[in-house]
C-alpha cells in the first residue's frame, strides 16, 4: 500500500513540475535555515572542545546582590577571593576551576599591534578543561604559588607572535611583562565564554585582583562533580554556603547566586527572575520563533496543495465512486505530502551542509566549527514531519469533503 502511495506521489510530483519546484523550494529553504540555527544552538549548548565534561560540570558566572529596600542591585562576575574562599572550599565537588573573564590587552611586535585576550586561571582549570596541548604543558600549582611569570598561549597567538617556530620555553611580552611560554594549546572560539582566551596566566599575576576581598570581581568558576548524581548535592551545598556569606557593605542586604548546568547558567542571567532558571522561557522563545518562521512556508504549501488537489478532483471522484472512503483518501494525501516534505528535507540537509561548510571556511567567528550531528538531524526530521502534517491536513480535509458528482463533473 505504502509503496503504491509512494509511486502515486512521485507521479504527481512529476506532472506539475513548477508546483513541485515551489513546494520543494519552500520546504528545503525553511529547513536549511532551521538546521543552520539548530547547529549553532547545538554548538552553544552541547559539550565542545575544550569544555568536554559539561555533563558533570556546574557553572557559576554571576552573582546578584540586591538591596531590597532601595531596589538597587548589582550583578556580575565574582572576585577570586570569594570563589576561592566559598566555592573552592566546598566538600562535594571533585575540582573547582576558577578563571577570569577574558581581559583584552595590547602588545606590539615588530611594529605590529596585537590584541591579546588574557585569562587568569588556577591550576585546576587545566584539569577541568580538556585542552589539547600542541606543545609543552600547562603551568603547575607550584608555579602559580611561586608567582612565576608563565603562560599558556593558543596556536593563533603563537603564529602571530612567534611565526612557525616552536614557542614553548620562549618569552612573550604582554601588558609590558615578559612571560615564559610553558605550552601551546589549540585555539578556542569566543562563543565558549568559560574557556576562551588567547593567553592563559596564573591568577597570582593578576594586577587588578590584589586586595579585592569583596564579592564582585572578574572571575567565574566551573565546578566538576565526581558523578552526575553529585550535581544536585553540590547545588544544595552551595545554597548553604551562600546563606553564610557575610555582606560586607551596607549597600546590599541580599545575595542571590546559583551554580547551574551550562545552559541554565546563561538562561538564568538572560531570562531568570528570582528563583526561576529561565530555561522554560528560553525554550518558549525558541519554539515560538521556529513556529512563526514556519508559518508562512506552511501557509504557502497549504495554498499550493489546495490547487493541486482541485486539479486531481477527477481522480478523487473516480476513486470515491469506486468506494474509497474519505479516510483512505485523507491518509493517502497526508502520506503523499509527507513524502514531498521528506524529499524537501533531504535537499534542506544538503543545502545546510553547504552553508555550514561556507560558514566554517569563512571563519566569521574565528575557530568556530559547526557540525550537523544526529541531534540536529533528529530535529530536522521532526520539523519535516510537523511541516508535512500541518500543510497536509487542511487540504486533505477539504478534499475528503468533495462530492463525487462535483468531483467528476469538474473534468
Amino acid at each position, binding site marked *: 500500500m505504502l509503496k503504491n502511495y509512494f509511486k502515486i506521489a512521485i507521479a504527481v510530483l512529476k506532472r506539475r513540475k513548477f508546483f513541485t519546484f515551489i513546494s520543494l523550494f519552500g520546504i528545503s529553504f525553511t529547513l536549511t535555515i532551521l538546521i543552520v540555527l539548530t547547529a549553532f544552538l547545538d554548538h552553544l549548548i552541547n559539550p565542545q572542545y575544550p569544555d568536554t565534561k559539561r555533563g558533570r560540570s556546574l557553572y557559576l558566572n554571576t552573582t546578584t546582590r540586591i538591596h531590597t529596600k532601595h531596589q538597587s542591585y548589582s550583578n556580575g562576575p565574582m572576585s577570586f577571593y570569594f570563589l576561592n574562599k566559598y566555592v573552592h572550599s566546598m566538600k562535594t565537588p571533585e575540582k573547582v576551576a576558577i578563571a577570569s573573564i577574558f581581559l583584552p590587552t595590547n602588545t606590539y611586535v615588530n*611594529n605590529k599591534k596585537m590584541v591579546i585576550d588574557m585569562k587568569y586561571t588556577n591550576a585546576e582549570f587545566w584539569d577541568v578543561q580538556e585542552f589539547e596541548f600542541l606543545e609543552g604543558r600547562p603551568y603547575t600549582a607550584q608555579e602559580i604559588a611561586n608567582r612565576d611569570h608563565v603562560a599558556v598561549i593558543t596556536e593563533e597567538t603563537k603564529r602571530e607572535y612567534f611565526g612557525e617556530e616552536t614557542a614553548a620555553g620562549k618569552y612573550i611580552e604582554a*601588558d609590558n611583562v615578559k612571560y615564559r611560554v610553558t605550552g601551546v594549546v589549540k585555539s578556542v572560539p569566543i562563543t565558549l565564554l568559560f574557556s576562551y582566551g588567547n593567553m592563559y596566566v596564573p591568577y597570582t599575576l593578576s594586577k587588578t585582583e590584589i586586595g579585592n576581598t569583596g564579592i564582585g570581581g572578574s572571575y567565574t568558576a566551573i565546578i566538576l562533580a565526581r558523578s552526575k548524581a553529585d550535581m544536585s548535592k553540590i547545588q544544595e551545598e552551595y545554597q548553604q554556603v551562600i546563606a553564610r556569606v557575610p555582606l560586607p557593605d551596607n549597600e546590599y542586604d541580599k545575595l542571590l547566586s546559583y551554580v547551574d548546568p551550562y545552559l541554565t547558567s546563561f538562561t538564568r542571567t538572560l531570562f531568570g527572575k528570582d528563583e526561576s532558571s529561565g530555561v522554560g522561557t528560553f525554550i518558549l522563545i525558541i519554539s515560538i520563533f521556529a513556529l512563526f518562521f514556519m508559518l508562512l*512556508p506552511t501557509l504557502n504549501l497549504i*495554498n499550493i496543495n489546495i490547487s493541486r488537489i482541485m*486539479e486531481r478532483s477527477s481522480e478523487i471522484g473516480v476513486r470515491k465512486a469506486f468506494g474509497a472512503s474519505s479516510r483512505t483518501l485523507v491518509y493517502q494525501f497526508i502520506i503523499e505530502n509527507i513524502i514531498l516534505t521528506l524529499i524537501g528535507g533531504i535537499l534542506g540537509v544538503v543545502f545546510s551542509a553547504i552553508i555550514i561548510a561556507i560558514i566554517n571556511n569563512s571563519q566569521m567567528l574565528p575557530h568556530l566549527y559547526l557540525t550537523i550531528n544526529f541531534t540536529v538531524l533528529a530535529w530536522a526530521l521532526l520539523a519535516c514531519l510537523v511541516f508535512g502534517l500541518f500543510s497536509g491536513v*487542511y487540504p486533505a480535509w477539504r478534499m475528503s469533503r468533495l462530492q463525487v458528482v462535483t468531483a467528476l463533473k469538474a473534468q
Partner: protein
Amino acid sequence: MLKHLFKLIWNKKKQHFVLMLEILVSFLVIFAVFTLVVYYYQNYRKPMNFDYERVWAVQFRIEERPTTYDSMYLFFGTLQNQLKSMPEVEAVSFTSNNIPFAMSSTQNNVNYEGLHIQQVNDYTAEDDYDNVLGLSLQSGRWFSKEDAGAKYRPVVINHFLKERLFGSGEAVGKLLDKGSERPLKIVGVINDIKEHGDYQSVESAIYRRADTSSYHWMEELLIRVKPGANVAFEGRLYKALASHLKSAMIEIEHLTDKRRARNNMTLVPMIIMMIVAGFLVINVALGLFGVLWYNINRRKSEIGLRRAVGATGQSISRQLVSEALVLSTIALLVGCFFAVQFPLLNVFDMPASVYLIAIGLSVLFIYALVVVCALYPGKQAAAIYPAVALHED
C-alpha cells in the same frame, strides 16, 4: 466594477481564505522589517556631530590608586602632562567608561522644577573633552578651569535633553537637581551626538565636570592624536602609560574600529533578518504566482465566454490583476488594523512616523508583489482564444 469584483471574491471566500491569510502574515513580516529599516535610516541621516577619526581610547583597569585627593590629583595630572608633551598628541581627557561606541552606559535621573526625566546618559569628562571629540556647542561654553571650586557643579547637556527640559527656552544658567546635596548648573548646550553608532537614536545626555572624587573610579582615557601618528607611536604611548600606571592592565583601541564594531552589532542582525525575510517573500511570491496561474487555467471557459461576448484581451488581464488586488486589499485592511496598534499604543518607544512610513511602504510592497505575480498569468489569460476555450468545455 469594484463591487462586482468583491462579489466574485466573496463567492469563493473559502477558497481564498488561506491565500488572504498568507498575504496578511507576509504583510506583518514585511511591516516588521520596514519598521526597523525606516528607524535605522532616519537615525543614519542625522549628522554624527563629532569627530572620531583620530581619537584613541585607553582603558586602564587599575586597583591600586593613590588614596588621598592630593596624591590622586598629582598622579593623574602628571600622566596627563606627560601625554600632552608628546608631539603626536593633540588633546587628552579622562572620562567615565561610557566613551563613544562603547558597550557600557551609565544612566541617571535629572530633575528640574517638578520635571523628572529618567534614563539620561550620564558622562563624566574633563575640560579638554570637547576638543578631543570635536564637539560643537549650541549655546554657552564647555567647562574650564574657572569652574573649579564653583558653588554649583557645572554640567553641559545635549540639545535633546534641553528640548525635553526647557522646550525652546534658554537652558544656560539654569539649576538642575535643586534641593539635592549638590545642585548642577548648566553652562552649555552641545549639538546632539550619535555616540552609540551611526544607526542609533539620539538620547538625552548630561556631561559632568570631573572633580577629584571622580579620579577614584575613572579608568578610561581619550586621546586625540595628530595626523600621521602610527603604530610605532602607539607602541611608545603604550610604554609610557604602562610605566606610569604600573598596576594596571592597559588596552588601546581606536574609535574608528569601535565604531565599526558597534555598527556591525546593529547591521548583522538586520542583514540576517533581511535575508530571512527575503527568502520568505520569494517563497510567498512563487506560491502566489503558482496559485494565480493555476486559477486562471481553471477558469478558461469563463474567460473564453467573456472573450466571445466581446471583452478585449487587455480588459481580461486587467480584471484578473484587479481581482488579485482586491483580494490583497482585504488582507491588508486586517493587517493595517494590527499594525496601527503599534503607534497608537506606543510600543517599543519609536516615533509614530516610523510606523506610519513603514505601514505605507509595506502596503506598496505587497501591492507591487501581487501585481508582479498576477501580470504573467493575466497575460496568459488574455491570450486565450474563445474558440479553443469554449471548445474544450
